[in-house]
């Protein structure tokens, strides 16, 4: 189950995503969003962040019953808002959203702790002194080997002769 992120006074973080009908004009859009915000404010909630409604093409046709007829929607204006609200006021907000004629569909989510906290960034692992020392030793060892590897031609000839004998 999702963890509840609830304050002492019973205030909970919520996210409301909504699809507004595509027939709305720009002025109407702003007005409808303002209405939603006012409703949340009137219930004692405060808006934390929001995404302005933008034209959105739905992946499937949605239907909604209006005045005894199914109305079909292929596009909509999708917007979202995150807010805090007392949990006993949510039902009131839901009822208002249910009766909102301008909404095609909405989703009200209770936000858990992970949604509210930024992702943890891992600190780079500190390099231990021991590792640095061992690396330095390895380098020295390599250099010594390389130095030893340089043998003059005369010495080589002597060694070959000794082997033949």
């Amino acid at each position: 189950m999702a963890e509840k992120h609830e304050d002492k006074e019973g205030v909970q973080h919520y996210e409301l995503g909504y699809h507004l009908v595509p027939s709305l004009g720009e002025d109407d859009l702003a007005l409808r969003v303002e209405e939603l915000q006012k409703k949340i404010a009137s219930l004692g909630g405060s808006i934390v962040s929001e995404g302005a409604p933008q034209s959105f093409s739905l992946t499937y046709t949605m239907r909604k019953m209006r005045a005894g007829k199914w109305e079909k929607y292929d596009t909509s204006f999708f917007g979202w808002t995150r807010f805090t609200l007392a949990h006993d006021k949510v039902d009131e907000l839901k009822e208002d959203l249910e009766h909102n004629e301008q909404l095609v569909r909405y989703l009200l989510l209770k936000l858990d702790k992970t949604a509210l906290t930024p992702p943890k960034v891992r600190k780079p692992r500190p390099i231990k002194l021991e590792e640095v020392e061992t690396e330095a030793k390895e380098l020295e060892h390599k250099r010594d080997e390389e130095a030893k590897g340089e043998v003059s031609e005369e010495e080589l000839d002597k060694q070959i002769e000794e082997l033949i004998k």
Partner: protein
Amino acid sequence: MTNKQQTDELPQVHYFDYKDVDTLKRFLNPHGRITGRKHTKLSAGDQRKLATAVKNARFMGFLPYTIT
């Protein structure tokens, strides 16, 4: 035995947001179904959160229910 076909690593997700379609799509198969834990390599809790996010995304028209 490791599955050699699974070469693409899936992203590490802090919070599965239903609006983040690009991330969610990486956890779906070509038919639009949620892939199992064997493929996602998520913990049981995170797999449940992924499933909820995908279902919310479908409800809100971000993802299709079926891809034919």
